[in-house]
């Protein structure tokens, strides 16, 4: 019985193959974009995890200097001699050609088992070879490829190594990093002997740091990934609209079948079961296809993601994907859940429908009028919720929740807004065809509203994110001009060279400004501290957001501190608050400056104070003021005199170009997802129009019979689709603006710590509108062509039961 029931139900799909295809396509696309984002995020997170796990920071307590400076090796020995089971790690960066390599030096002998993620003895390595110069760098295969031809110690491959990271013996690392007798931190074995003397007695300057559940890296990049996730959700929501409308239509059209089956004795329970099984099979098949497709999309996007993560955060993510069971599981689960959620109301209706309910098609316009109002009320409620979250919420998740509520609310409001717009159109139009056009368009709304809501989401996201990116770009370019006023930037390789280069430049340029900095840990986060000279360059150009009038005088006197915007926002710092620096020095905050593109907190003090408080500060870099026309000549001379590598001497234009390139790549992924989302929305419209085209015949035939040609009707159909897209775009503009505002004023502040002014780019909207109209026309083209090709006989069949 069930088998025959299933056959009857499935026969529907045989007769409506396009509907079937659309259902699968919608579901597969929704799952694909979602899975793509998941796969990318998964890859990146796994990479951070590996980076953190490679020496067990994620599992072991560590001892570090409170100020982030390195620990003397003798202190390590002292601790061991006192019975503490600690193991030294030296970490640092080294450049090989253009490649930046993170070097991790470990002592394989004392390394706690919990920290040994990477097999030191792999690749036939002997401990003797590992610890004896020139030693061995253990790197991943990809990193090894990038280092090919560079003068590195011999490489050994272990793909458990995170990209861009090399593990080597502590002794080898000390010579590579020019840090003899120094270690960065000490790993504490989980089981320490009892009765050892307390740390405070033996090493009072060291602090214990709990295992980093999330590394600094994953915290910094969190916002980036949350961004992607939000887009994944958006794309999934848009795809789900297709599924919902396809399922809705299929259930509606199968009501007679359902009634007949029940009349013939199939129990309701069995019927529902059959339909659920059918949906499960469909969604699993589509889900599988979707996840596979998602991996395809992800592998296309990943290089850009990896590039922007590297550029923005220095986070190394491999450019290739690995297959993650979690992505498959989650993808399939969300496909099934989405399908069942889309079908739930339909199933409920069938479950509660009296056996002999009339099987006539839905009373479209009347039912919808009421439904529209109800839906709009829901939309307004969501908008109110969004407002409340913006007003009272805090945090990135709240920001995205507000965004979600706002977008969904706007989408729910859309049908009513369109209905009102179309009513207005009808009232304003004179001609009978025009009036019919508007009236008929309005009648199509219920059937198309889901697809149009999807379009609204896609358009609003495009407009909003576009506005955000463009605003950011405009601000960023202006800021670069302020931030990089010097004509030349020089990095030296040692303190001795630094001094020589400084003296050499001093006589050949207008000014040599030190760009010296130290790393510290303040307010529970890593903070960079820069020292600047007292020079007009800073007084005139520095992108100050707010400052006391005498800020630069105080900096010059060593009597004040500047903080970047993100640090000030995160720590709620206001002008005048005391900042506690090294050696107990407390200075007031005298200014806050914008510092886009840098996720870290930063402070600026006078350069004299920097070297006084942080004797270990890096003193290698300089900004040079010189007449622009003399730059090439000076660069060449620098190169000749000091044999500085090309990447150590960079002119202003190159720095700017580099910064802009990072910027562009950062948003390349966003743009790609935007376009994909718009594509999904276009497919949603196409699917809806296609499934509606059969139903349309009965509505168009009377107009045709009373004297309109098929060609004209077909043109009107295309026009209708274009008009709906156009109106949806109109509705999307305010939503997009609201979205942009929320991104700039709420999400960015939470995610990156800076707030940007909003700029409006109406030409972009026009372009977007044209794109939307074009995709709507494209979507309507095929059904319209079909309509034009209809034989009169098919149309008159509508009117007669016989010939």
């Amino acid at each position: 019985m069930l088998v025959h029931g299933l056959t009857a139900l499935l026969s529907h799909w045989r007769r409506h193959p396009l509907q079937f295809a659309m259902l699968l396509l919608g579901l597969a696309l929704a799952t694909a974009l979602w899975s793509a984002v998941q796969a990318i995020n998964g890859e990146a997170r796994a990479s951070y995890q590996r980076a953190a796990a490679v020496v067990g920071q994620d599992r072991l307590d560590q001892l570090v200097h409170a100020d982030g400076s390195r620990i003397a090796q003798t202190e390590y020995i002292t601790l061991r001699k006192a019975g503490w089971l600690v193991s030294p790690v030296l970490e640092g960066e080294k450049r090989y050609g253009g490649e930046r390599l993170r070097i991790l030096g470990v002592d394989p002998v004392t390394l706690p088992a919990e920290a040994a993620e990477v097999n030191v003895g792999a690749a036939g390595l002997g401990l003797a070879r590992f610890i004896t110069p020139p030693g061995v760098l253990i790197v991943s295969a990809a990193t090894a490829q990038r280092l090919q031809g560079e003068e590195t110690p011999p490489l050994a491959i272990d793909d458990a190594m995170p990209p861009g990271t090399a593990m080597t013996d502590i002794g080898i690392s000390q010579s590579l990093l020019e840090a003899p007798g120094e270690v960065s931190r000490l790993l504490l074995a989980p089981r320490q002997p009892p009765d050892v003397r307390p740390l405070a007695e033996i090493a009072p300057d060291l602090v214990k740091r709990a295992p980093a559940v999330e590394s600094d890296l994953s915290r910094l990049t969190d916002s980036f990934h949350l961004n992607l996730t939000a887009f994944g959700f958006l794309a999934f929501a848009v795809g789900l609209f297709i599924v919902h409308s396809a399922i809705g239509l299929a259930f509606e059209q199968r009501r007679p079948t359902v009634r007949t089956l029940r009349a013939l004795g199939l129990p309701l329970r069995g019927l529902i079961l059959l339909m659920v099984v059918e949906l499960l099979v469909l969604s699993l098949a589509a889900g599988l296809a979707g996840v596979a497709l998602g991996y395809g999309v992800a592998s296309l996007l990943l290089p850009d993601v990896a590039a922007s993560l590297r550029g923005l955060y220095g986070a190394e993510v491999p450019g290739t994907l690995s297959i993650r069971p979690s992505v498959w599981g989650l993808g399939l689960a969300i496909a099934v859940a989405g399908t069942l959620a889309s079908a739930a109301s339909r199933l409920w209706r069938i479950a509660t429908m009296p056996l002999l309910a009339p099987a006539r098609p839905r009373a479209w316009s009347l039912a919808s009028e009421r439904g529209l109002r109800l839906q709009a009320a829901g939309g307004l409620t969501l908008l109110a919720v969004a407002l409340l979250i913006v007003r009272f919420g805090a945090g990135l998740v709240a920001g995205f929740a507000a965004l979600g509520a706002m977008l969904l609310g706007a989408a729910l409001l859309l049908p009513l807004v369109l209905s009102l717009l179309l009513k207005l159109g009808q009232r304003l139009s004179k001609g009978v065809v025009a009036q019919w056009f508007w009236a008929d368009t309005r009648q199509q709304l219920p059937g198309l509203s889901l697809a149009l809501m999807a379009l609204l989401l896609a358009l609003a996201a495009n407009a909003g994110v576009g506005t955000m990116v463009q605003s950011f770009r405009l601000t960023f370019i202006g800021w670069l001009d302020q931030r990089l006023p010097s004509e030349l930037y020089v990095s030296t390789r040692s303190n001795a060279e630094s001094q020589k280069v400084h003296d050499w430049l001093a006589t050949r340029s207008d000014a040599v400004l030190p760009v010296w900095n130290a790393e510290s840990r303040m307010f529970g986060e890593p903070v960079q501290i820069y020292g600047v000279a007292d020079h007009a360059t800073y007084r005139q150009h520095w992108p100050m957001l707010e400052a006391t009038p005498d800020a630069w005088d105080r900096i010059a006197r060593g009597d004040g501190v500047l903080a970047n915007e993100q640090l000030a926002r995160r720590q709620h710092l206001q002008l005048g608050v005391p900042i506690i620096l090294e050696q107990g020095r407390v200075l007031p905050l005298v200014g806050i400056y914008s510092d886009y593109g840098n996720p870290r907190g930063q402070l600026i003090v006078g350069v004299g104070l920097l070297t006084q408080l942080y004797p270990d500060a890096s003193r290698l870099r300089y900004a040079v003021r010189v007449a622009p026309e003399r730059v090439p000549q000076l660069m060449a001379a620098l190169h000749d005199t000091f044999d500085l590598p090309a990447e150590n001497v960079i002119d202003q234009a190159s720095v700017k170009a580099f910064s802009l390139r990072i910027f562009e790549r950062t948003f390349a992924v966003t743009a790609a997802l935007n376009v994909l989302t718009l594509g999904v929305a276009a497919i949603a419209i196409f699917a809806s129009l296609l499934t509606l085209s059969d139903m349309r015949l009965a509505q168009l035939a009377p107009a045709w019979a009373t004297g309109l040609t098929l060609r004209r009707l077909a043109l009107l159909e295309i026009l209708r689709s274009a008009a709906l897209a156009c109106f949806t775009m109109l509705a999307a503009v305010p939503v997009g603006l609201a979205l942009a505002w929320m991104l700039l004023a709420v999400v960015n502040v939470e995610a990156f710590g800076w707030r940007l002014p909003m700029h409006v780019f109406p030409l972009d909207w026009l372009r977007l509108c044209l794109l939307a109209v074009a995709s709507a026309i494209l979507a309507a083209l095929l059904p319209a062509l079909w309509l034009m090709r209809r034989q009169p006989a098919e149309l008159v069949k509508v009117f007669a039961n016989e010939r």
Partner: protein
Amino acid sequence: MLLELHDVSKSYPTGEGVLQVLRGVSLELAAGESLALTGESGSGKSTLLHLAGGLDRADGGAIRFAGRDITGLGDGALATFRRESVGLVFQQFNLIPSLDVASNLAFQARLGGRFDAAWTERLTARLGLAQLLARYPEQLSGGQQQRVAIGRALAARPKLILADEPTGNLDEATGDAVLDLMLALLAETGAALLMVTHSMRLAARLGRRVNLAAGKLG
């Protein structure tokens, strides 16, 4: 002659081959005349009506309306012909669902540029639709819908009304009332009527009757 059909033939491709629906039918209808077209199911009555109304094209023969051959007209000209010269009343799916009663009534007349407000108003009153103008087709009963269809067909004062089982979906009493109304209004406007029906009782109320059997007039 208002309408002349001369040796008209029509066939349709079907699953089992070509179905010859009309096999050389000739028919004449004078202005103001009313003609009932009867026949068994499948005899080709509706097809004949569709050909006469320019909804479909004949395979052979000639159809002339007011002396003008419409057999060779293109889609556009046929649409114009329908718009200006013919009023259609069908058994079902007759009205435009997205328009209210008032708009449906006026639709064809305005489409053909022959809208006459006074006449439409009178027509509305005669059809008893005055209270229903703001309603939509699906809010109407079958009899009400059919009255709107008749009103729309007559609003443009066409010379010819084509009706296909106009009372087929209605109960007998309502059907009779609708037909009464239609005949009375036809008398007022002087339009000719070609009505397909399988009911001898209804056919008897028209001026003349022809019977179609196996694609030929009997």
